[in-house]
């Protein structure tokens, strides 16, 4: 139990996928304009991350590793993730059309979202057990949600600011993203402190 909590805390705060590992920057900058679409996107990412881990972990452990085909990891994982995203898109279109419309082009983009591929590969690299992997994926997704929500708030503040013409638009947003990222450095060591 303690270990799972430790994994979750460290992946949400200390090793935040977006702000510390710099994975999944595309949706981070693309969908963080509005809070509700940011939350919707993060929900989709959490779902896909957990589902991808549930599916890819056994594939790696029971198929790829015993047959010595570790090098197939990336291509097989991408194949699985792509079809999972497609599945999520089809079901969203059917059951939550409003969310489907507001996510727009970013939903297919989860396919190539390195955060999802990243979490599945890192689970294997860190030698987590199956349960630990699932919670690691859940934590990574929640960390993504946290980063998105914080950044959506920051962006709303930027909208009302008088930014110099040179920095208008994306430059100011990238600078803001870097400052938010630096602020997350303050969490390093927090987990060791909590679970001493």
């Amino acid at each position, binding site marked *: 139990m303690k270990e799972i909590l430790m994994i979750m805390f460290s992946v949400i705060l200390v090793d935040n996928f977006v702000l510390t590992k710099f994975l999944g920057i595309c949706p981070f900058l693309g969908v963080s304009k509005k809070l509700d679409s940011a939350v919707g996107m993060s929900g989709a990412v959490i779902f896909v991350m957990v589902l991808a881990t549930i599916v890819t972990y056994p594939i790696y452990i029971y198929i790829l590793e015993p047959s010595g085909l570790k090098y197939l990891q990336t291509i097989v994982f991408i*194949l699985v993730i*792509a079809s999972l995203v497609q599945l999520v898109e089809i079901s969203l279109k059917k059951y939550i059309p409003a969310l489907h419309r507001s996510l727009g082009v970013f939903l297919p983009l989860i396919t190539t979202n390195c955060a999802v591929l990243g979490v599945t590969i890192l689970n294997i690299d860190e030698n987590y057990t199956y349960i630990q992997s699932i919670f690691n994926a859940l934590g990574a997704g929640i960390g993504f949600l946290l980063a998105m929500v914080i950044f959506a708030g920051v962006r709303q503040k930027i909208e009302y600011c008088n930014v110099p013409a040179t920095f208008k638009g994306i430059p100011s947003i990238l600078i803001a993203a870097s400052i938010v990222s630096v602020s997350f450095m303050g969490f390093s060591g927090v987990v060791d402190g909590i679970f001493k």
Partner: protein
Amino acid sequence: MQQYFLPIIIVIIIGFLAGTILTLASKFMAVKVNETVVKVKEILPGANCGACGYAGCEDYAVALANDPTIKPNLCTPGGSSVALAISNALGIEFEAVAGKTAVVKCSGTYAKTNYVMDYRGLQSCAANKMFYRGRGACDYSCIGYGDCVDACEYDAIKIEGGVAVVDNDKCVGCGLCAKRCPNNLIDIVPGSNFVYVGCSSNEKGAVTKDKCTIGCIGCKKCEKICKFDAIHVINNLAVIDYDKCKNCKMCINECPVGVIKFNN
């Protein structure tokens, strides 16, 4: 040989499984797309301005496809050509689009209304209104920082002498500016030739007169002279009922402050 074939077989099997699941899912969770909606949506301009009264072009298309009693001529930006195309596509009777125009109900330019502050903050009507209730003496006056100019997608409104002015040739009556104006000064009225009251002040005549030389003082002279019962003073402000107004212009000549005007 195994080291070559095994990876190929594994990838093929996984791909095949994923493909099968996806095919089944798309069969079971298929969403029926109404073809008329798609057709109508292609005809509509896609500006999502909301002039038709629906949330966007798609909503209007859905409403048109599902309910034959909805008129196809609600899209003022698209004009008669769009209305004709929609009525052809749906097989319903064509009606010409009743043109709409935005009109700014304030005439208080620099010369006519006093400014009570030298505002240096964020140059936006909304911000000025929020913090200081407007920079003019009159609470109902045009603030003049051009939030409506930013909102307009057709370049049809501009600030002249501190008051927003609509360019009738460019205005399509979509109402985006009317939604943005923090003082609700902009009205959408039918047609391009109409009489309008260039003031929104609900204050009593004497108060309005102190603040602005061209504000409606609610004297009711227009109400008395109108033969069609089309203009009434409500809350110290003359309001025209466009269903009754015949554009006879009697009230224009009668108005002592000259706030009733004709738009052409």
